[in-house]
């Protein structure tokens, strides 16, 4: 690992002032579960690490009439144990439970989860986020793409968004606050994630001198929500495909629906055809089946990941079935 300087500020303002204008100047350190391995492999080589762990204002989960406020430093374990989360936001609890090792949940933070880098093996092996080969073409379409995108994968990005909290937060209509020297901006989580168009762009809109300080989730009253993750094995690993749903109900009828797929595209992927298929319908087996089919319409799998189309469809079906059982 390249040597670095270590700073431990106690306020967000101080932390922001320790960051630089490039990712090479400084990186933020939360739980370190992703960052440290990137640094060991020389994928990130910042001159300075700015630890967030001493900043009290980034801690804590608070429920109010306006919804749920989750500090960026809240660990996955804290989130999972929070009674309000368990009761009203089962889709977030399921995402936390899916990160299946207690060590990872004790150390990993929700802010770090949203800001973690993709797991694309070309990226992790040093080929860059766009996995370019010697001639500047992407290695993914003709390479081993079994875990890559099946939507929004016409290049230049082929990786999938790794964050387990991205899809449920997009489904729930959550926002994030980002603080930089020029002030604070509040942004829907859906707009936080982007598919990079150039090698220098990233998979989210964070600037090198910006901190994600908190996540704001709208009240869940009347919103049935669930997350279903399909995995190759039960042990600690990323899911292959996931679905998060949030349904606003009018009696037994779906008044509005948000259905978001994970691990299928460079961003959490809104399945708008499925949302449309479900809206105005009675939430029953036939409607669920139809939405699950609609969710994967238009998928463009690569040479090795056609299997994901079926997994994503099943994930939507199971998530909707769970939401149908839920009472809110």
């Amino acid at each position: 690992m390249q040597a670095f300087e270590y700073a431990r500020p106690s306020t967000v303002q101080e932390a922001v002032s320790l960051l630089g204008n490039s990712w090479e100047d400084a990186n933020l350190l939360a739980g370190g579960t992703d960052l440290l391995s990137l640094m060991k492999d020389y994928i990130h080589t910042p001159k300075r690490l700015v630890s967030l762990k001493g900043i009290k204002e980034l801690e804590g989960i608070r429920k109010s009439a306006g919804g749920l406020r989750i500090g960026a430093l809240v660990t996955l374990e804290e989130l999972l144990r929070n009674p309000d989360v368990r009761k009203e936001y089962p889709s977030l609890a399921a995402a936390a439970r899916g990160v299946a090792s207690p060590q990872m949940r004790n150390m990993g933070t929700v802010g770090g989860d949203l800001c973690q880098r993709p797991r694309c093996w070309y990226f992790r092996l040093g080929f860059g986020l766009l996995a370019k080969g010697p001639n500047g073409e992407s290695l993914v379409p003709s390479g081993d793409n079994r875990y890559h995108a099946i939507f929004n994968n016409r290049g230049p990005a082929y990786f999938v968004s790794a964050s387990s909290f991205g899809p449920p937060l997009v489904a729930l209509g959550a926002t994030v606050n980002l603080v930089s020297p020029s002030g604070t901006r509040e942004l829907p989580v859906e707009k936080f994630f982007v598919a990079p168009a150039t090698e220098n762009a990233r998979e989210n809109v964070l600037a090198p001198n910006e901190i994600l300080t908190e996540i704001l989730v709208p009240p869940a009253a009347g919103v049935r929500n669930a997350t279903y993750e399909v995995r190759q094995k039960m042990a600690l690993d990323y899911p292959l495909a996931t679905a998060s749903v949030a349904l606003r109900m009018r009696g037994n009828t779906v008044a509005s629906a948000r259905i978001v797929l994970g691990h299928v595209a460079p961003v959490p992927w809104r399945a708008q055809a499925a949302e449309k298929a479900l809206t105005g319908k009675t939430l029953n087996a036939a409607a669920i089946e139809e939405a699950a089919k609609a969710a994967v319409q238009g998928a463009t799998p690569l040479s090795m990941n056609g299997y994901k189309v079926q997994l994503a469809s099943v994930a939507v079906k199971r998530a909707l079935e769970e939401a149908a059982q839920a009472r809110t």
Partner: protein
Amino acid sequence: MATIKFTVNGTARSVETEPERPLLEVLREDLGLTGTKYGCGEGQCGACTVLLDGRPTLSCITPAREVQGRKVTTIEGLAANGKLHPVQQAFVEESAMQCGYCTPGMVLRTVSLLERNPNPTDGEIIEGLNGHLCRCNGYHRIVAAVRRAAVLAGKQS
């Protein structure tokens, strides 16, 4: 260089080190506590697990600077007065190790698991040890050892 002061197995320690070194390296190389193992170095195997303020933590991806003022328990800190900790005793009685490389991490994780849940079901044991790999594939005996540890710990308290 920075001075890091922290408590290891009940003793106050002070180490001069560069900030980029992981806790694992400081424990093994500076303090000679080689019971904590290096498996993958990237948070995937659990071999380097220690208890940080009582919580299982991967020391390979914890910068040493993050433990300033905190309490670390390693496998060397479990036995008291020449007597094995009930979890260690249970691992011995069940022969729950082959090469033994994963054992310190498994034992420390089990200590914290039983503190929270003194009578885990097999499902809870498997879920609780999910972050640990055993390359010798001794999982059956490890689960049996945790079951036995729950009994031994129950008798002791």
